[in-house]
């Protein structure tokens, strides 16, 4: 085999930190998967089992496109629920299609994430030192943490920017800067510089704007293509959006929040319900307590843990008298149908507001 070209599936803007990490830890080229298009899902579905969950199809599509684009090493993150099993089947499907490549699941070899990633990377770069590994791992974590933090601010305000596209432009330049990070000090400086830039973007935001919380399955929540850009649609309707699911949560905060979340929703849940189901119920409760006007729950078709959560969410929102809308995404979900539902949901929230005054 010639030189290795490493690639990984797309997840929103996390391309930047992931590429950064792999580049710093191995000496190979990292080539991003081609941008997600309609075609990605089409090819992905073509070779996926019919009722596999949607993220399986999207990521399989990513793999095929990136392999066609010259990559020969694929890394993926693994994870809970069905995610952890994706890679073995996807590898099988891709090999049967005739692709010749190496496939690594970062969390495959060990229960402990940090040492598992180390072992995986060791395969690609036997010379990597533990110290160098930990240094760049932490740096990447911090980068992700900063990104997520700023994203929370963006989601709340992007619907109210006076010059359309301001947030997008600043974010783009921030990601470029992040990808060239030289060390911790540099990263921290960049963060504060861009935080200021974001805060300086001119807004026209009424104090009592509509607020909507998004909860649901992690991939659908994080990868905008898989939810037909639901957050952008809401922003265009001048809605403040909060969504707690992000990589920081999945990697770090989830385990610390479990007890706190369970206490918040004692009345509804005694246990965790698989994947992020219980977390989503607790978040809905937190958002309602913060005065959010409505909750939107999103998931791919057939998502087992989230279907369980729906039953509980229904009770919660019924008790709190806050509307919740459930959206399911599948390969044949119509974009217009989603838009119509969103618009109607928005109208309803406005009407309810009118009633309170």
């Amino acid at each position, binding site marked *: 085999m010639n030189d290795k070209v490493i690639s990984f599936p797309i997840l929103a803007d996390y391309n930047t930190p992931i590429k950064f990490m792999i580049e710093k830890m191995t000496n190979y080229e990292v080539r991003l998967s081609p941008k997600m*298009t309609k075609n990605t899902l089409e090819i992905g579905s073509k070779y996926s089992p019919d009722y596999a969950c949607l993220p399986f199809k999207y990521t399989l599509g990513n793999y095929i496109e990136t392999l066609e684009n010259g990559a020969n090493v694929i890394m993926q993150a693994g994870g809970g629920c069905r995610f952890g099993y994706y890679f073995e089947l996807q590898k099988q499907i891709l090999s049967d299609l005739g692709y010749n490549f190496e496939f690594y699941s970062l969390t495959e070899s060990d229960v402990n994430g940090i040492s598992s990633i180390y072992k995986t990377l060791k395969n690609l770069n036997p010379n990597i030192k533990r110290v160098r590994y930990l240094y760049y791992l932490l740096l990447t974590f911090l980068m992700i943490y900063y990104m997520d933090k700023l994203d929370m601010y963006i989601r709340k305000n992007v619907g109210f920017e006076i010059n359309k596209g301001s947030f997008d432009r600043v974010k783009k330049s921030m990601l470029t800067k992040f990808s060239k990070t030289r060390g911790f000090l540099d990263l921290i400086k960049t963060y504060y510089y861009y935080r200021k830039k974001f805060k300086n973007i001119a807004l026209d935001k009424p104090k009592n704007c509509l607020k909507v919380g998004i909860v649901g399955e992690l991939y659908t929540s994080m990868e905008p293509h898989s939810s037909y850009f639901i957050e952008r649609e809401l922003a265009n309707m001048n809605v403040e959006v909060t969504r707690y699911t992000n990589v920081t949560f999945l990697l770090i905060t989830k385990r610390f929040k479990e007890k706190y979340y369970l206490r918040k929703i004692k009345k509804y849940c005694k246990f965790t319900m698989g994947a992020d189901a219980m977390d989503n119920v607790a978040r809905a409760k937190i958002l309602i307590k913060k005065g959010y006007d409505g909750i939107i729950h999103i998931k791919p078709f057939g998502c087992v843990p989230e279907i369980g959560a729906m039953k509980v969410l229904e009770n919660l929102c019924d008790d709190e008298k806050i509307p919740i809308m459930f*959206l399911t995404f599948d390969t044949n979900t119509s974009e217009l*149908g989603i838009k*119509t*539902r969103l*618009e109607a949901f928005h*109208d*309803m929230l406005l*009407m309810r507001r009118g*009633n309170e005054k």
Partner: protein
Amino acid sequence: MKNNAYLGVDIGSISTKGVIIDDSNNIIACEYIKTQGNPISAVKQLIKSLESKFDSNLYKIVSIGTTGSARKLAGKMLGATTIKNEITAHAIATISIHPDVRTIIEIGGQDSKIILVDKKIVTDYAMNTLCAAGTGAFLTNQAKRLDIDINDFGSIALMSKNPVKLAARCSVFAESDLVHKAQLGYKKEDIVSGLCKSIVNNYLNNVAKGKKILSPVVFQGGVSKNIGVVKAFEDELKTNVIVDDIGHLMGAYGIAIMSKKSVKDNDFSFRISDANFETKVYDCSGCANNCEVIRIYKDMKLMDSWGNKCENGLK
């Protein structure tokens, strides 16, 4: 001085509806035609027919609203001042006719929905998520299979004393079920009645699941014209179900009312029916996103386009 009038157009996958109302929401002209897969010609035909029913010496149209799945296209053609989704339009229309309504059941060509209302405010709504089963398109299909005129469907259903148990989720699934039952020799009216029941069950189990259905209940949409389904709803809900004569026009009526808020003082001409409209769908090649861009041309001139997701795409 002419009186103000307001035009509402609801253009769905199966049918296209138009309503013109006056200042006190009275209907002064209305029309209902089939879309037949061609929204442009449907809108033209609708407008032509509305013109003939409309007294332009007495009234002038000061605002136009469009709704339904082709609301954007129709809106551009007509120069609409309000373009809104059909769910809100239905709610507004129903509330204006039945101020005390609590539950609106709507089963249309491809969608079914439930809207809950309290004190004239929409408090909750839901729409079918899985597929088109139990909608108008589904019923029309089944009627065809049984060789029954869709207009007789309801009255045939009422003749049945022993409705057959049928499943109704996906048309594909239910069809095979239906075929088996028909071959086993069940009476036609029992099968038809069974279908009506299955539509109601499907609706209550999927669309209206977890929603408290309080009366007064208003039933709308194309399927509400089917008395078999109305009866099945009444049996299942154990309450009276109101079906308006203009139930099929509700979307258009509602959007006409909503358009009143966006009155523009220019007289609408019905001449649109002579203009030549054309739509073209492009796969934009501006970036790898390959957005599907829809462009609409009026008399060969580009009027508008939509569907593009980024700034470097086709216009």
